[in-house]
């Protein structure tokens, strides 16, 4: 039996535990036969690795990699906590 909730759990576990990704913060949603990945990662290589691992766990699903690469520009302001 194919239960989408278990597929989501398996893929989240793979993304967390596979050393290629080691990402605990990627959100996985399966809607119909569409697989959506969202979240923020440190670099483009990490984003590609997520797609690679996800592809191995998503037979028959159309993969949408909506993961973004985090911005790390110097700050433009400051918060005054006085």
């Amino acid at each position, binding site marked *: 039996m194919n239960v989408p909730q278990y597929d989501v759990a398996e893929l989240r576990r793979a993304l967390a535990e596979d*050393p290629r990704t*080691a990402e*605990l*913060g990627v*959100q996985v949603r399966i809607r119909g036969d569409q697989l959506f990945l969202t*979240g*923020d*990662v*440190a*670099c483009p*290589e*990490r984003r590609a690795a997520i797609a690679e691992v996800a592809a191995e766990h998503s037979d028959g699903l159309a993969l949408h990699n909506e993961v973004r690469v*985090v*911005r*790390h*520009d*110097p*700050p*433009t*302001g*400051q*918060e*005054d*906590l*006085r």
Partner: protein
Amino acid sequence: MIRIGAVGDVHLGVDMRGTVRPSYADIAEHADLLLLAGDLTRLGTVAEGEVVADEFAGLDVPVIAVLGNHDHQSDAEDKITGLLTDRGITVLEGSATVLDVDGVRVGVAGGKGFGGGFAGKCGHAFGEREMKAFIHHTEEVAERLRTALQGLTADIRIALTHYSPSAETLRGEPPEIFPFLGSYQLAEAIDASDVDLAVHGHAHYGTESGTTAGGVRVRNVAQPIIQAAYRVYTLEPAAVEPAYPR
């Protein structure tokens, strides 16, 4: 005015060497010190620790760090701590440091922290030994944080952890996983210690601003939230001396 720079969860891998340092080249124009709130690496290897050292050592401002859960993944946390320390980065684990910033003593006490959950919705040291070990670890790190904070003699006091002392800065995360994201026991230590600001990371989907139950300001600086190299918070040393010596 003291300018606190802070970022968490930079998650550097060996493929990122040289990529983040340029963002910190002019940090002295923005901040007087830089706090790193843990999850410095992805897999917690020594090789990744060396990348962290290469990226953050020798900046124009002092760098103070705690480790995160990712930095423990390869059981190399002591080696990573050692190599960062050798490169001039202060790594806190149940310990504290005081910096002199233009005559103002800025005290930072910190440690990784741990989960367990928040008051009324938390785990207890009861039952299986695995459950007791989980909660006992939280109690231990919270107690060491309290001791480190209360040992500080400083004009401004900052608590730096990886795990969150507040549920408020977790808004955006599924409530079911709050017990893996922080613990109220960290906040108890902070609230008992006259802290001006608590800084943490770990909750990539949380919220930047919150407070502890006792009203201390908390900032979640996980990089996916702040979407910048670091945030800057300004603090002024208390104008009125507290009733007991700091």
